[in-house]
Structures are given as C-alpha cells and as structure tokens.
C-alpha cells in the first residue's frame, strides 16, 4: 500500500541551526501539507502546497519556515534558525486532490532543539 515516508524519524539540533525535514508523498498525489504537534498539545496546520507554491499557511509558518519540492518526489520543510519552541513532531501529509481528497499522513519526524 502506498504511504507517505518521512526522514529523519528523530533529529536533535542546537538552537540556531538550520534543519531540513524530508517527506516523500504518495507518487500520484498533488497536494502536500505540513502539520506539527508540540508535545502535549494539539496537531496544528502549518502549510499547504500545490502546483509548486504555497496555497495556505498558518500564523505559525513565519519567515523562519519554508517549503520546497526540489524534485518530482521530495517535499521538504526547512527551519532556518531553530528555536527551543520548534521542538515538536512534524507530520507530512499528501492528497490526490484538494477539497475532499483524503489526507494520508506520514509517521512524523520528531525534532528536538537544545
């Protein structure tokens, strides 16, 4: 069964360092998303991406964050200068279509900022 894969599963970094989280969406999917879950808090929407551009972003997704689809298979989330409060589980998701297309989530990448 096709699935969304994320790497790394866990990354530990120092405050101020750049981090790139990688996702391989399901191959025929066109819509891509990042969500995050700070420990003990709700899963929160960060950004949606379609046709090589951001279609929607939350207020969390500030200038420190960027997303990219560098090739035909990967979808990345970059955090330019990590802060302690960026420590969270980051989930990538993809869907075949927008609107009512079902979201398929990856297993998450846990980011720990020291």
């Amino acid at each position, binding site marked *: 069964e096709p699935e969304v894969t994320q790497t790394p599963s866990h990354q530990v970094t120092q405050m101020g360092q750049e981090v790139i989280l990688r996702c391989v969406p399901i191959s025929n999917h066109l819509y891509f998303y990042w969500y995050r879950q700070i420990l003990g808090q709700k*899963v929160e929407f960060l950004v949606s991406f379609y046709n090589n551009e951001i*279609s*929607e972003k*939350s207020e969390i997704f500030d200038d420190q964050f960027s997303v990219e689809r560098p090739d035909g298979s990967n979808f990345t989330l970059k955090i330019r200068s990590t802060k302690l409060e960026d420590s969270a589980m980051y989930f990538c998701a993809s869907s075949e279509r927008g609107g009512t297309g079902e979201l398929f989530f990856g297993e998450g990448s846990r980011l720990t900022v020291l």
Partner: protein
Amino acid sequence: AQSVTQPDIHITVSEGASLELRCNYSYGATPYLFWYVQSPGQGLQLLLKYFSGDTLVQGIKGFEAEFKRSQSSFNLRKPSVHWSDAAEYFCAVARSGGYNKLIFGAGTRLAVHP
C-alpha cells in the same frame, strides 16, 4: 473561529466493552468532520469522515460516528473494543471545501485492559 474539543484526555476500557469518545466542534457552517487514530510510532490514519448526508457514518476497524448538529458533536463509537484499539484518537474539523486545513482536537488516549 473553528475549534474542536475532546473532553476526555484518557479513557480506559476493558476488552470487549463498548466505547464512546466524545468530540464537540465549533464552526459557523456545515463542517467537514473526521476521526483519526495514531498508534504508537505510527502516523495519523483516517478512521472515518462526515461531509453530508446520513449522519451516522461507518469507518474502518468497526468504528462509527454520529453527527449531531443540535449538539455540535461527532462522537466516535465502537460496540466491542479490541486490545489493538489502544491508541490516541483525534477528532478534526475542516471548513466546507475540504481537507486543506484541518483543525484538530487535543486527542483522547485509549487504554484497553485485557
């Protein structure tokens, strides 16, 4: 603003017992409603969804949920719980037009006693 409340943080049931997980939402129009499950070390998996029509929806793994507009609720039920159902369950809402931005509840962690 849209919001989702899951009043129960932890629930423990005995294997074979029935289960009901509560979810209340706040949304001005007809919402799209979802239940996701997250098993340890796994991503978020869609259990079921409600867009319109029959207010009782069937999902995977023997789960069902009922949309009650008058109570702004979308409670998840299962008549007989299995040990493998132990996981965290998330209710989510999206504005009409679909999935692009899900608003999640805080989750309910389910433990199952043998």
